[in-house]
């Protein structure tokens, strides 16, 4: 360094990207997770003779499709640095509203509109508290979690709503082609829509920016509050859609419906490689995580492992898969030193 002042020397070309696309993909979280999914698949096929059966696998998808739909929206929310713990309670409230409407003789299309609409309203309420009132989402949604489900309890008490119209059953029990249920097809379609929204639109870019640095986002002219509001609305709406599917699948509504799902959804999102601190994650990861969780519970179910023991596996899976990249990085920096 003999000259201190930089001279506008020869123009150097900066490449767009480094490495080959193949290398970039291979080093991603999604590939690791996909590997895990494949391993679980192989293990399950070896462990149980009933696993590799189209209809059985099709049944197994019901273990995760509804949760995964919410997880897509939750992923966007978490990437933006927020969280919504009230999703399961929104299902309860939306389902209750649909039940009440069904008793009043509303037909299937109306019920769907009501379910989705109630979800949307709940999401707007959360969004209002977080983005307008500027409250921390984790606490707000702990509150609305009790509030929304509490309203269902007020409405339903110890009663249940049943008697849904015949054609309403299609959303949770119908099949589109062969073994592919309506729910599964919807799950795939939503996965694609969310992937496009997050990865290919300006809105998606704004979500990432907010999650990485919401000051910088605001300083760059991104309407941070509005984006967050929309994301809460979207999460509410997805919960509403999940409520339609679940209610249709169960054919009845009780206030305790979908109890405890919020943590499973968050687990799915985190397992999918979305950073709980915001700013990174991909829909593809969440899709794989949904399959992983579905396969684990289904596989262990075939071995008649009690559900609570399965949850040990899920917990371990969560911690271990998050820890692996961290440990790997540690080892790498240690050996390079």
């Amino acid at each position, binding site marked *: 360094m003999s000259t201190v002042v930089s001279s506008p020397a020869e123009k150097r070309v*900066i*490449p767009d*990207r480094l490495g080959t696309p193949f290398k970039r993909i291979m080093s991603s979280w999604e590939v690791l997770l996909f590997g895990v999914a494949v391993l679980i698949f192989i293990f399950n096929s070896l462990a149980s003779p009933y696993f590799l059966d189209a209809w059985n696998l099709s049944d197994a998808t019901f273990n995760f499709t509804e949760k995964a739909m919410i997880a897509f929206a939750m992923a966007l929310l978490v990437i933006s640095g927020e969280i919504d713990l009230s999703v399961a309670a929104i299902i309860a409230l939306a389902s209750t509203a649909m039940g009440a409407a069904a008793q009043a003789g509303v037909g299937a299309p109306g019920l769907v509109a009501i379910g989705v609409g109630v979800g949307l309203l709940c999401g707007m309420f959360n969004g209002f508290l977080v983005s307008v009132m500027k409250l921390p989402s984790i606490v707000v949604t702990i509150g609305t979690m009790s509030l929304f489900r509490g309203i269902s309890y007020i409405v339903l008490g110890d009663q249940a709503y049943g008697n849904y119209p015949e054609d309403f059953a299609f959303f949770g029990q119908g099949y589109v082609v062969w073994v592919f249920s309506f729910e599964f097809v919807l799950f795939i379609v939503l996965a694609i829509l969310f992937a496009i929204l997050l990865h290919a639109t300006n809105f998606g870019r704004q979500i990432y920016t907010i999650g990485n640095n919401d000051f910088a986002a*605001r300083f760059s002219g991104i309407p941070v509050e509005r984006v967050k509001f929309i994301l809460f609305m979207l999460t509410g709406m997805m919960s509403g859609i999940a409520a339609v599917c679940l209610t249709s699948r169960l054919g009845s509504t009780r206030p305790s419906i979908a109890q405890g799902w919020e943590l499973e959804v968050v687990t799915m999102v985190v397992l999918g490689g979305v950073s709980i601190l915001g700013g990174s994650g991909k829909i593809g990861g969440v899709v794989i995580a949904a399959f992983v969780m579905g396969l684990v519970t289904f596989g262990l179910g075939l071995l008649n492992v009690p559900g609570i023991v399965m949850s040990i596996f899920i917990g371990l899976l969560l911690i271990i898969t998050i820890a692996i990249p961290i440990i790997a990085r540690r080892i790498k920096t240690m050996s390079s030193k």
Partner: protein
Amino acid sequence: MNNALQHPVASVATNDVPAILEMRGISQIFPGVKALDNVSIALYPGKVTALIGENGAGKSTLVKILTGIYRPNEGEILVDGKPTTFANAQAAIDAGVTAIHQETVLFDELTVAENIFLGHAPRTRFRTIDWKLMNSRAKALLTSLESNIDPTIRLKDLSIAQRHLVAISRALSIEARIVIMDEPTAALSRKEIDDLFRIVEGLKAQGKAILFISHKFDELYEIADNFAVFRDGRAVGHGNLKATPQDEIVRMMVGRDVENAFPKIDVAIGGPVLEVEKYCHQTEFRNISLTLRKGEILGIYGLIGAGRSELCQSLFGITKPLSGKLTLDGREISINSPLDAIRAGIVYVPEERGRHGLALPMPIYQNMTLPSLGRTSRKGFLKAANEFALARKYAERLDLRAAALSVPVGTLSGGNQQKVVIGKWLATMPKVIILDEPTKGIDIGSKAAVHGFISELAAEGLSIIMISSELPEIIGMSDRVLVMKEGLSAGLFDRKDLTPETLVRAATGNA
């Protein structure tokens, strides 16, 4: 790689007493920057050593190594001649090193006394914290600095200058033999500086070694005995300060003549573009009026905490002013959000690059196109090719050094990060660009590039507001300078009237 012999220990050879602390062949590497490159320095009892160097020369990095916050990649530290490693901040404190850091790193929610004594609070005989004693000691320390801050109030209720006094008190509260002061006077007024210097004299008399960092030469000549100069992370000179003329030190610092540092181009200044009338803010500033003309560089000078950033942020729609009128190109406009400002053609390059300017984990090109996404996308869908094209255009124009446009911007050196921020805002093709401390913490090469660039922009007809705390920069670059003091306007000076004395006097209110 150990060529310590070629870089003799930066100290004064005439000292007979052995050094209390010696650093040998220290290197510190950050991703993309070699902040320190094989430097050596020694501190002697009863002496104040001035550490001098341009922004980004590595001074603060050295301080952080000495206080156990960074572990150097190479080199060794000797205390009383014995090699020591500072595993963490506590280890450094235990070894007798205390520091006033450049940024006040304190706890908003804790009381003043606690901020001073955290980690070494006086204990009762049950080993529990003795709050009474702690408060009274804190009070005593603050009084010795001629400050009447109540030690039981929370830090968040203090002003910037008061916080600085707390930080100084904290450093002094530690029983140490080596006291480091990293720009302790930046936020202080003359009276407080005098108090501080009295204390420094006291410490000297007690035989403590002091490392003193400042950009103000008058202060250095007043207080320091020895000096060491860093440039670009290397130790380039040392000696007895009083025996070395300022010119020589400056030459060591920058490696060339200072006059050339500010390549200001003479521009024909046009009519008014932006007029601010009686801008008031609830808490930050009052009654600020200014006119910015086409092709003009308007400097804003003041002490830290004078409210300059707040003023400019409210012009950009981040905060709302209480009252006031804003006129752009003769039309009155109201700006309620940054988006409004961007649409109107006013952009703001923030002071805190990492916090406000960039999403560090995201790629360069995505940062660059963030405010211009409307132009690079089609119907709301991203078009990567357009984004790369736009990013490349400004990267080349600013001579950005990066491995690829898709690497996270956080992996770039400070100067290159600053180029990304500036590029990001230029890409919006603004009329008015506000630069808040545009060269803060960037290396000398980049700095000259940024300065050259600012001049070019003005020559192209852009109107520029430039906040800076660096006198040479503000004097070298501005057509006019607004000086702010504690939220109020303290005078507007024309280029011909710009001298360090007038500006400092206006900013501090001292004769």
